[in-house]
C-alpha cells in the first residue's frame, strides 16, 4: 500500500511518500489511521485530530468507513486551500 502525505501531514510525519504493509486486519480507512498512529510520535502528532484530516483512496475522496486494500494509493492531507 502506497501512502502519500501532503502539507502539514508531510511536515509532521517527516514523510512525503512511503510503502507500507499493514496487518490484514486493517480493512478500512479508520483502521489504517489507528495503525499508522502507533508507528511513532510524528505519526501520533500528525493524526491527533482525525477531524482535521482528509483522505483519498486511489485519488478519490474517501470516508473513514471506506475500505482500503494492499494495492491502494492512500493520501492523507488537511482540507484543501488552493484557488
Amino acid at each position: 500500500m502506497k501512502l502519500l502525505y501532503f502539507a502539514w501531514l508531510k511536515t509532521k510525519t517527516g514523510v512525503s511518500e512511503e510503502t507500507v504493509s499493514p496487518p490484514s486486519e486493517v480493512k478500512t480507512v479508520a483502521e489504517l489511521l489507528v495503525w499508522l498512529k502507533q508507528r511513532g510520535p510524528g505519526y501520533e502528532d500528525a493524526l491527533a485530530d482525525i477531524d482535521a484530516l482528509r483522505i483519498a483512496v486511489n485519488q478519490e475522496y474517501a470516508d473513514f468507513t471506506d475500505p482500503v486494500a494492499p494495492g491502494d494509493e492512500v493520501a492523507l492531507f488537511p482540507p484543501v486551500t488552493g484557488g
Partner: protein
Amino acid sequence: MIRVQREDFDLGTELRALTEGNHAIGGLASFVGLVRDMAGGEKVGAMTLEHYPGMTEKMLGRIEAEALERWQLDASLIIHRYGHLEPGDQIVLVATASPHRQAALESCHFLIDWLKTKAPFWKLEDTPDGGKWVDARDSDDEAAARWAK
C-alpha cells in the same frame, strides 16, 4: 479544458482562445485568483503551492464536467498553478463561455467555489515567522454548499 502548471499564463491570450471563431457565444465570464500580500492581517512575502499530481487533474476534470452538465456552455477553462508564487502573481483562472450571460456567470462562480474546496492544493505562506500552512476557511465550505443540488 484543464491545465495544471508551474508557469504563468497570459490572461488575454487564454480568454481570446476560448471564444475565437465561435459566434454562438454571447457571454464570457472569468475569474482570476491572485496572491495577496496580506493574509489575516499578516504580511505575506511569497508562497508555495503544493498539489497532488494526478488527483488534481482528476478533480478539476470532474468539476469542469459537472459545470458542463449543469449549464449550456460552449467552452470552459481551468488553469491552476503550483510552486513558488509572489504577491500579485496569478494563481488560478476559471473561465466559461455560453450563448447566455447567466449560464456563463453562474458556471464561472460555481467552478471557482467548487475548486476551492475540492481540488487538492495547499498554500504554504512565507511569513516573518517562517512557513505557515494556510488554514481552510469555513466561508469556502459555505460558498461551495450553495451549489449543492
